[in-house]
């Protein structure tokens, strides 16, 4: 899911232009760098295998050591997808947390 910041005035073509949050009183520099203006937000859709493994883990059917390689494989895939799509701010899609 893509989203944009309504308070930004510049596109991701000019990353050196700052984003200044309107609602938070703070001393953030006006030269704060951001990867891009529009980017997908935190949680990404989980693949079925990861969802199944997470459910099994939450039900104590598998241990954390069994869940981790499944998480890692899913993160590897979603990172590759983001890189292939040309995303700037790469994340792990919060795959290591409950959806």
């Amino acid at each position, binding site marked *: 899911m893509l*989203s944009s*910041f309504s308070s930004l005035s510049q596109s991701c073509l000019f990353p050196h232009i700052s*984003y200044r*949050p309107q*609602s*938070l*009183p*703070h*001393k*953030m*520099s006006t*030269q*704060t*760098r*951001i*990867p891009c203006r529009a*980017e997908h*937000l*935190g*949680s990404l859709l989980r693949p079925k295998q990861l969802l199944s493994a997470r459910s099994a883990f*939450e039900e104590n059917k598998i241990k954390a050591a069994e869940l981790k390689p499944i998480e*890692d494989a899913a*993160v*590897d895939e979603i*990172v*590759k997808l983001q*890189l292939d799509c040309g995303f*700037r*701010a*790469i*994340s*792990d899609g*919060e795959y*290591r*947390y*409950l959806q």
Partner: protein
Amino acid sequence: MSLILRGTMSCACPPCHQELKLWNSFIEKGHKPGQSCLCTSKISHTGTSSILPQFEYLKTKIPKERWGEIKVTLITPSWYHLRYIDGKAFPKDIYADDEAYFADVAKAYRVELDLLYAGGVRNVQFDDPNLACECSASLKSYMQPLTCVRFLFREDVGWLEDFNIQHKDSR
């Protein structure tokens, strides 16, 4: 993306609806509230970032010149209290008022942000699903938007110019 804070207890299903404010979106559709986190003692950071290992893993999958763009998401500090009725998010015998509670949560978050920065993180996003409540007149009445986050970004806190911190609605 949630911080494991000393002094809190995570529970998969909140004990009962009496613990929670009457979110229309939960009650009307019969949904059970998801994983929640309750304060059980004075809150503080554990001293170790549970999020940094995830950043370290991403570094093995992304070119080095782009490590500064890797995004780490944190749940908004207000997540730990916003859904609960008065006296349930933080018992009165632990914190006498909101300000004392907010101060400790904000302090824990600043420890986490310091650890993340020291570990090489340069792009952090606070995910705040509660901002979506701004779209509903009924839910909006429950909101104290950004109160706790304001504690985090008080004027006396200095931030580094190369540390991008954003606050977004994740819906």
